[in-house]
């Protein structure tokens, strides 16, 4: 299994799908000659040509919507929204159109569209290029929401997203693009809706997504030294959610910390906490802790930005507060 970056994993999956299937094509700003603003689609124009790797105007509503229309005709378009902040401009097409056509038509229509987008802080982009908006999309019946944290998950989940007959919003984290892992050469699809336990443990479960999975793994490592056994679980698919995996884990560890880069208020962690306290109430030895960004827009100056977003020490502190209970 060759070492592959998260960026390459996404690209290789797109290429594999396009090679086997003429219905798959890409639309997005600067994805052709430039290979995408994050370099993810690098080289695809050369292999697949400009009909299938389509540079678009800056029209986030129309390109999402063109994806919807093509998907209804049986294509499997993959649309890239350059920064997830700009998904604010596609919300009508994603939420009122893509997510609802099947239902409103009484099951006649399906919309096998994949919307890839990326974002996240940590490199001083300022407040309009650093949103983490996965929570919004999880509130929308009819959508699926995927957020891989590793190269192998990116590959296997993107494949399943493209071949899912529903619209999937697929989140990538900007700072994860360079990370490397072994990814099977032959694409191995990963079923949507299945969580991944990255590391087993017995004292506390950290439910983490995106960049924070890696933070959680480091915290788990450190925690061992202090005699705390941490289980790290990444839902990977946020909607539908693998409730069983999460609940089972917390029933075993009796404690839960949930962490993501978005602000905690109304963030994805709120859903995890609400769910876990409901389904594992009698098993909980401590309140479920949420760790996310402080409640501000993302500031520019690196010193403030780093202060706002969550780090190992924040997650570790939450783990310790949790374990200190009883």
């Amino acid at each position, binding site marked *: 299994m060759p070492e592959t970056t998260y960026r390459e994993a996404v690209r290789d999956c797109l290429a594999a799908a396009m090679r086997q299937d003429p219905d798959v094509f890409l639309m997005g700003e600067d994805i052709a000659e430039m290979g995408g603003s994050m370099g993810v689609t690098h080289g695809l124009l050369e292999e697949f040509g400009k009909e299938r790797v*389509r540079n678009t105007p800056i029209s986030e509503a*129309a390109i999402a*919507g063109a994806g919807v*229309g093509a998907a209804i005709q049986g294509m499997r*378009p993959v649309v890239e929204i350059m920064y997830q902040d700009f998904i604010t401009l596609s919300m009508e097409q994603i939420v*009122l159109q893509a997510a609802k056509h*099947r239902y*409103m038509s*009484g099951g*006649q229509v399906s919309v096998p569209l994949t919307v890839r987008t990326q974002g996240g802080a940590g490199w001083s982009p300022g407040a309009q290029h650093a949103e983490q908006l996965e929570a919004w999309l999880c509130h929308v019946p009819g959508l699926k929401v995927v957020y891989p944290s590793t190269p192998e998950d990116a590959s296997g989940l993107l494949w399943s997203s493209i071949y899912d007959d529903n619209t999937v919003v697929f989140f990538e984290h900007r700072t994860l693009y360079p990370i490397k892992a072994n990814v099977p050469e032959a694409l191995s699809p990963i079923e949507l809706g299945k969580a991944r336990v990255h590391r087993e443990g017995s004292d506390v479960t950290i439910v983490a997504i995106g960049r924070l999975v890696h933070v959680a793994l480091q915290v788990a490592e450190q925690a061992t030294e202090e005699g705390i056994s941490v289980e790290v679980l990444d839902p990977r698919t946020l909607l539908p959610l693998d409730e069983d995996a999460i609940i089972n884990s917390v029933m075993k560890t009796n404690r839960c910390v949930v962490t993501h880069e978005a602000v905690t208020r109304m963030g994805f962690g709120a859903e995890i906490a609400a769910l876990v306290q409901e389904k594992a109430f009698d098993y909980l030895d401590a309140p479920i802790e949420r760790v996310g960004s402080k409640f501000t827009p993302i500031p520019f100056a690196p010193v403030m930005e780093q202060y706002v977003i969550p780090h190992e020490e924040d997650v570790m502190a939450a783990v310790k507060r949790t374990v200190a209970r009883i």
Partner: protein
Amino acid sequence: MSRGVTKLEQPTRLSRETLVSFLEEMLLIRRFEEKVEERFRAGDLSGFLHVALGQEAVAVGVCRTLESDDVIASTHRAHHHCLAKGMTPNALMAELYGKLEGCSRGYGGSMHLYDLATGNLGANAVVGGGLPGIVGAALSFQLRGEPRIAVAFFGDGATNTGAFHESLNLAQLWSVPAVFVCENNHYAESTPSHQHMPITDLSRRAEAFGMHCVVVDGQDIEAVYLAATEATAHARAGNGPVFLVANTYRLTGHYVGDPQVYRPKGELRELRETQDPIPRLRELLGVDEESWSALEADVKATVEASVEFAKSGTDPRPEDALLNVYA
């Protein structure tokens, strides 16, 4: 109205047979819509209904130029497009009654009418919301080399939306086989055009994209049909999308029940007298009282049958609501 004589002072460019079939279809839509108004007032129908009295010629004139595998997307005001594109009155009425036999199985309602079998991709309750999808549908026809076209219907008010601009821009840029039919009825809800648009000639909208544009009197079905024939042929031939402006009039309220306080006094009466496409075509054809009555009777029977069909349809079970969320 003239009785019993075929007046041909104004020569028709289409065969009498064709025009008579147009008249039939338009009358069916008219009576269907009036029935909807009646059934709403009677308390049979729930939700939010918009009928298209006065705009029948646009729907019929355009849809009659389409092939059955061409697709359309419509708006909140959709019944006329649906019927013209081939949805049965039964399936439509049943939907308005919220029945499983409805075109959308009762999940959609008046603003969400789908009929994939007749190429109807759905009414859309978001103004401008259906346009991007039409670009995508047309793009897929282009990519697959299929000789199909995709048609979006929308109102004058919709031309103020960002979605309109982005969609036409993208369509022209990629030269997809789409026709954008603007049904300019001079109002967006209560707001007259001069209060919501800085221009009066809607063809100027197409200038921004260098898109081919055709403007037509939407109350003259023959003119609509001929303009649409040109537009759809242009798109189908791969010459790029077309912006087709049909100037028309809404001869009723914005929604069923609209008291229309915003209308200048007398406007509605005057429009009904001068701008009704149905008497206009009847007159052109010189349809006599007898043929007219026969026509009316046919249409009435169809409409009544649709109400019967709808009323005796199956209510969904409450828990059916949980189906169809995901494919």
